[in-house]
């Protein structure tokens, strides 16, 4: 058996349509073992469909998909015993307590009585749920419920984990905590494929990102690669009056001025040396700047560049 950096997920030519509507239009991707891979795209791009196919919930119309060495169409039980799935919708039993939910998963994973109980306690502690363990899940906050959901997914120590929009609907603090949990999982050697419509989330977590749009992967790479490929880094200056704006615009050929807002967008990668240079030139010309801000190319720019859409998540599902 080879163990070093086998791909944990291999997908080739995946297609799926419902009636006339094509949801996946030939998707290829490879996720290296032990890494975090983000599928980024707006609602309706096909992210969830990919997760549902890979987790054996639905079948693809055509194409091949392998998870942890098991074919998703031929060896469903093999796939199922290697994966953990946390879906978009809470998959906890609301009437059971946190502990009972975890115990249910331990039993279904056939962990045995003692080992199961130990694993339940361990996960309750790890996800900061020990205190609420005896309360019904229906009384949990959104963040707690999501943590319980993830803990339930981890009971069987899956090698590959699918997280479908793991932080949608969470408040900023719960979101940070979920990010930490996801990072810790990856540090433990688990392969994670997550979907998100948040650029910062993909940027923050993923080793590699695939941008999905209308059922196709339109860009793929590390976050840095994607940003480097995309123009978009700039310095934005705000000036006191139209006169100053024109004077400043004359200093920087190629800069775009916004007469109404009195701003000037100066291209550049937004790093410190280029900022110094800009400030020095303004000083020499004795132009007073009211406000200055730096924009490095972010995944927003990437997304705009590859799909022609400005914001994610605005498009209706």
């Amino acid at each position, binding site marked *: 058996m080879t163990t070093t950096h086998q791909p944990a997920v291999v997908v080739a030519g995946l297609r799926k349509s419902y009636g006339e509507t094509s949801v996946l239009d030939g998707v290829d991707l490879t996720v290296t073992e032990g890494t975090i891979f983000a599928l980024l795209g707006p609602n309706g791009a096909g992210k969830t469909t990919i997760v549902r196919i890979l*987790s054996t*919930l*639905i079948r693809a119309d055509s194409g091949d998909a392998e998870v942890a060495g098991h074919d998703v169409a031929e060896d469903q039980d093999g796939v199922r015993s290697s994966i953990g799935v946390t879906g978009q919708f*809470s998959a906890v039993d609301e009437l*059971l307590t946190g502990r009972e939910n975890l115990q249910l998963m331990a*039993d*279904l994973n056939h962990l045995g009585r003692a080992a199961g109980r130990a694993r339940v306690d361990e996960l309750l502690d790890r996800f900061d749920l020990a205190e609420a363990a005896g309360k019904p899940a229906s009384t949990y906050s959104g963040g707690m419920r999501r943590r319980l959901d993830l803990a339930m997914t981890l009971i069987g120590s899956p090698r590959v984990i699918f997280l479908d929009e793991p932080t949608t609907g969470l408040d900023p603090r719960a979101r940070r905590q979920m990010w930490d949990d996801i990072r810790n999982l990856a540090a433990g050697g688990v392969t994670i494929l997550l979907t998100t419509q948040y650029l910062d989330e993909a940027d923050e977590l993923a080793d590699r990102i695939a941008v999905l749009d209308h059922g196709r992967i339109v860009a793929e790479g590390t976050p840095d690669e994607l940003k480097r490929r995309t123009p978009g880094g700039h310095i934005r200056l705000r000036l006191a009056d139209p006169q100053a704006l024109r004077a400043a615009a004359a200093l920087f050929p190629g800069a775009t001025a916004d007469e109404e807002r009195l701003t000037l967008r100066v291209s550049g990668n937004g790093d410190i040396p280029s900022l110094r240079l800009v400030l020095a030139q303004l000083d020499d010309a004795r132009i007073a700047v009211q406000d200055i801000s730096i924009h490095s190319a972010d995944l927003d720019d990437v997304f705009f560049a590859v799909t022609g859409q400005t914001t994610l998540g605005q498009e209706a599902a």
Partner: protein
Amino acid sequence: MSTLAYTVSDSATMFRRNVRRLRRYPSLTLLLIGMPIVFLLLFVYVFGGQLGHGLGNQYLAGHSGRAGYLNYVTPGILLMTVAAAVQGTAIVVAMDMTGGIIDRFRTMAIARSAVLTGHVLASLIQALLSVGIVLGVAVALGFRPEAGVLDWLAAIGLVTLFAFALIWLATALGLAAKSVETASNTPMFLTFLPFLGSGFVLVASLPAGLRQFAHYQPFTPTTETLRGLLTGTPIGTNAIVAVAWCVAIALGSYLWARHLYATRRSA
């Protein structure tokens, strides 16, 4: 462990989960058995005196009209209790299917049949408990069954088989429903069937069309058999017909439910 051992173990786990849910949510069960109890009180104390007189000596067996009617109506009420209890089955199955947890179960390497088996077995416990409670109420009102040990065993067996059949039907209805609200309504017709049979009045007293229907619907032979076992009225071929109905409903519903479970995808 072998596949069979896994199936048994997973089904037992799912059974425990559902029993725990029923215990944590007793209001559903209480709500469901409230209806047959209300009908029992209504029919015995409001209509019973009058209706009892129409039964004839074969059913009254020396009792007054109201006491005789209590004996007559109790078996029908018990089957109505089963019909009411299985509404709960449809509701909890639909709750599972429309919630996120079913996708979790489907992505785990667990025995395929365990989810439904767990529901059916827990519902069976719920239905039999409900019947026990309603029977207790009937006894408190003065219902005095004349059944011997064998009759009791046969009666319990019949009610269990009948409940098993209706639970599978309700499971299929719960799977077929698009929402929990739909699932709580679709099995409701079952609770009306005792009225359109021999549950409350003699079939012979019904008008022609209805009498035909009453004659050929499953509640009538089941009611007649249960009544015979508990109060000693003649059973005849009703027992065989009742058992045949139960087996047919259970088998058909099981196949339907299995098909729905395998093909249905949740939201």
